């Protein structure tokens, strides 16, 4: 049996979980799904889900990774699941890590390719923030796997399943909820969020100072964009870390990313690889960013940007 651990957001099955459901048929045998808290079983039918295992413990309605991990561990054991699949999300990776530790099981996270060869699953995982891939094998039973939702498009099964709901009981103590979510504090959002901006202007070491970022702010203002930076810019204190683009920062996907004085280290580029266009401004013709950008301008950004801003102002009539 293959168990798919699915997640819902505001009552709706997440798209990432649809990706996870889509790979389940590859492992052969019946597909069962499991969700914590109340879950809509109907939406699971098209994915060939035969049974929906419902863990009847209302305490799990609030995120509690320790208790959830224990519940998942118990369900995997009692239902004799051979393979467990989920989407590679922060919550699923955390919960499956806990289940894996309790069972002393193998767990491959962030998989981008999977194939089954008898008792072995051959897999490819996204590593280094997605700039490189690891090939590995998972052996033993059960095998826990989370899949990178970007690598597997949601796909319905050839035949729908009954998605029959079956209550499963798990034994959880109050102590298992010791690290449950306590509260949610509202953050404040200022300006255009970097992650969803249509235009991003980024600055790196080549900016030279915190003050120099005011020209990027000005250009971003004119183009309705957001300002970001490299790790050098955040490490130097020129920008706050929330503006960092890259492996350990934010992933951006704008129509246009204008990267100024940024060399193009792979850890930076994985953060902007979903940009439709990258215009790189760099004074070094050998800078790696010119290998990954769609457009390049060679030269000193301190000359180019003010001249560009003048022209943009003319067009905008400001």
């Amino acid at each position, binding site marked *: 049996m293959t168990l798919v651990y699915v997640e819902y957001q505001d009552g709706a099955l997440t798209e990432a979980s649809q990706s996870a459901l889509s790979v389940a048929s590859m492992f052969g045998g019946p597909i069962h799904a499991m969700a914590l808290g109340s879950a809509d079983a109907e939406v699971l039918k098209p994915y060939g889900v035969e049974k929906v295992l419902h863990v009847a413990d209302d305490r799990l309605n609030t995120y509690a990774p320790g208790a959830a991990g224990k519940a998942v561990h118990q369900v995997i054991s009692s239902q004799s699941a051979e393979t467990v699949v989920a989407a590679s999300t*922060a919550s699923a990776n955390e919960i499956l*890590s806990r289940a894996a530790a309790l069972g002393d099981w193998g767990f491959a*996270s962030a998989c981008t390719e999977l194939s089954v060869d008898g008792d072995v699953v051959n897999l490819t995982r996204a*590593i280094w923030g997605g700039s490189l891939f690891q090939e590995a094998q998972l052996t033993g039973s059960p095998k826990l796997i989370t899949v990178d939702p970007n690598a597997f498009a949601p796909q319905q099964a050839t035949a729908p399943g009954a998605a029959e709901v079956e209550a499963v009981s798990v034994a959880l103590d109050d102590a298992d909820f010791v690290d449950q979510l306590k509260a949610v504090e509202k953050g404040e959002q200022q300006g255009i969020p970097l992650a969803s901006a249509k235009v991003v202007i980024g600055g790196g070491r080549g900016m030279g100072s915190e003050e120099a970022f005011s020209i990027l702010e000005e250009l971003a203002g004119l183009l309705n964009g957001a300002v970001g930076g490299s790790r050098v810019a955040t490490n130097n204190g020129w920008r706050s870390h929330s503006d960092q683009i890259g492996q350990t920062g934010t992933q951006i996907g704008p129509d246009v990313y204008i990267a100024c004085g940024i060399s193009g280290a792979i850890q930076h580029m994985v953060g902007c690889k979903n940009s439709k266009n990258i215009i790189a401004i760099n004074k070094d013709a050998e800078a790696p960013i010119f290998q990954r950008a769609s*457009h*390049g301008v*060679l030269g000193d950004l301190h000359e180019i940007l003010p001249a560009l801003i003048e022209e943009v102002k003319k067009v905008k009539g400001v």
Partner: protein
Amino acid sequence: MDILVCIKRVPDTGGRVNLTSDNRQIDTSNMEFTISPHEECAVEEAIRITEEQGGEVTVLALGPEGTTEQLRESIAKGATQAILLQSDDDNWDAHATAHAIINAVKDKKFDLILMGNEAADLGQYQVGPRVATMLGVPCATGVKALQFQDGNAIAKRQDGNNWAVFELPLPAVVTVKEGINKPRHPSLRGIMAAKRAPLEQIAMDAPAPKMVHKGLKLPQESGDQVTMLGEGAAAVPKIMETLKELGVL
């Protein structure tokens, strides 16, 4: 408060990555090594906490001999002890790594164990929660703000625009993300002292992974060529044209 920080030595790859001829690892000739920004912040956080509250910081790394460089750098910043679990093997999955860490520290007492949310290279998102579960202590992951109140760790992680708040009795495991603090640079004095600091070295047996490492694969290059728009301020008309074509002007 006595704190254990787990760090990992990884190559500082820069702009281009080549693989070794057997495609098993990154070709690190002419490369420097570093630790993940997340773990650098874990070290910083630990040093800050002990500066405020007293206690000692132990850094632990599982890796090859060269890892002493990253351990000494942490000592130079203010960690008091370092443990190297020495292994040249490249087949340590999260399961085997968590077991090795637990084994090494089972006779020691820590109030807090700090790790990165995910390692820079393998990024399994597992070692922290696995260690916590095996020790039977609470855990919070992806933490970007950490405080202490009445013997509890108040750990916050970003959830979109909101903050998810967890309150963990100690001892606990907390995995952090870059941005929780701004790591310091080691002082010259620290660097000199770290050179002579004793390190505890434990030679490791070959790992018994559940996920067996087979090799690495580079992503497919798009093959698209960059369109050069010109040099210096003379390129501005072309940039303007491009911005119009791309629909942002």
